């Protein structure tokens, strides 16, 4: 997926408004109207359930964030060999890497998640070796399947980005490194990988926001993230809109904070000659 498309799907740092942009007459009117709407929602809708669920909501948000960060980091670590194999690997590495990216990017994440959870989950208990292994207490839980599915998905999308990034490093830089007498491994470690990661960084913001937007899917396999907590609220209070509005607000805040953090880091990375 090109950077422009990711930008169309996920909020980007340059979309955040500056402080001075709020002081325009029509914006002040809009903000007042919006404030009135929020007040009306706060006054006329039912929010008495909120204090009871606050601790659980906090835990849910932490679970969502843990899912996001663990799968993004693991996925990125997987994406590097995936991208490299597609650019420079021999055919028996290139073909599986390509196939992996195509299959994962061509099927819905929800389906992959259910395949892993229900499919593997129903397969594992049939093997006594797995039931007796030290992994079994974890394999009986839902979260390893959620982490696996989200990691695989992130790796496939970012692997495609890394493929482009590895291929896009100027040939002259690699030749210069070789002319200095660097070995293949040194060249990769000192020149190729850092330059490729640098080229891939702008897409990382978008991919991470997209990953955050994918995390609520794990609630469908009984992982208790913030989405699952809100579903629980809806079941117990018979309210439809209030919990969902709160959930949308929570995700907007999380996305906003994530984008702010990325903007901070992006500004610290020198980009001259990129």
């Amino acid at each position: 997926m090109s950077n422009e498309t990711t930008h169309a799907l996920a909020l980007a740092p340059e979309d955040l408004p500056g402080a001075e942009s709020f002081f325009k007459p029509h914006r002040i009117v809009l903000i007042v109207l919006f404030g009135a709407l929020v007040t009306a929602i706060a006054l006329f809708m039912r929010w008495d359930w909120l204090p009871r669920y606050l601790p659980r909501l906090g835990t849910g948000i932490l679970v969502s964030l843990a899912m996001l960060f663990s799968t993004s980091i693991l996925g990125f670590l997987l994406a590097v060999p995936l991208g490299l194999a597609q650019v420079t690997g021999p055919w028996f590495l290139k073909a599986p890497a390509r196939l992996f990216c195509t299959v994962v990017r061509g099927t819905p994440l929800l389906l992959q998640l259910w395949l892993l959870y229900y499919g593997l989950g129903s397969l594992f208990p049939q093997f006594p070796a797995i039931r007796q292994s030290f992994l079994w207490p974890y394999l009986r839980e839902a979260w390893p399947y959620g982490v696996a599915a989200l990691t695989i998905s992130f790796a496939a999308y970012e692997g495609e980005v890394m493929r482009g990034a590895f291929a896009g490093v100027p040939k002259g830089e690699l030749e210069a490194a070789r002319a200095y007498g660097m070995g293949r491994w040194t060249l990769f470690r000192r020149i190729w990988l850092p330059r490729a990661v640098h080229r891939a960084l702008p897409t990382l913001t978008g991919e991470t926001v997209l990953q955050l937007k994918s995390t609520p899917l794990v609630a469908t396999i009984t992982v208790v993230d913030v989405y699952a907590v809100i579903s629980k609220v809806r079941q117990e209070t018979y309210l439809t809109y209030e919990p969902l509005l709160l959930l949308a607000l929570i995700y907007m805040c999380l996305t906003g904070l994530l984008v702010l953090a990325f903007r901070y880091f992006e500004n610290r990375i020198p980009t001259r000659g990129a």
Partner: protein
Amino acid sequence: MDSLVNWSLLALSAPGWGGVLLQGFLRSIEIALGGYALGLLLGIGGAFGKLYGGPVLRDLLECYTTIVRAVPELVLILLLYYAGTDLLNQLLGFAGIGPVDISGLLAGIFVIGVVQGAYSTEVLRGAIKAVPAGQIEAARAYGMSPAKVLRRITLPAMLPHAIPGLANLWLIATKDTALLAVVGFAELTLVTRQAAGATKAYFLFFCAAGALYLALTLVSNLFIGVIEWHARRGLVERR
């Protein structure tokens, strides 16, 4: 497990679930097509509103695209699904018509369309901005009305820039239909889960559904390649 895979479960007629799966697949494609078309209409309107609209319209559209790009599709689908059907029934109640049962198909198309609308607004806005301003100014100088400028100059000229993004959006639309399984709409992913639950052949059915989705993606990619080649035929390759 006597034989490793019981292929007869995929048979098209009654004891097998193949027919049900294909029906769900068809339903998924219908929603994806409808939602994508609705999204394109919203996107064209949104992109022009964002580029040429007044300050209030521009801010409202900015809110729309920001919210859709910051909130997970799953949450939006739930909100729009309940709010959309509820709102329509209340409006009909005001008009004196009793509540109607809104078909899942229409609700699904509406939901996917609103989400896709925000994405295509962004894609199309970028593409329109890539059209050299001089071309549009020249069209205006010829005395073309705004509608004619749109039809004759802006839309055809931005198309090569928009097609890669729009193609990705189509692939995303086909995959987003799977999310409707969560609101209980019987598209491919949900019927697959039902079939798998009933027969306990989880692996077989999920892999079969995955193959269907993948086939849709690959066939779409073929068409996209042809369309892209056709749209770029007048452009100088910049490499």
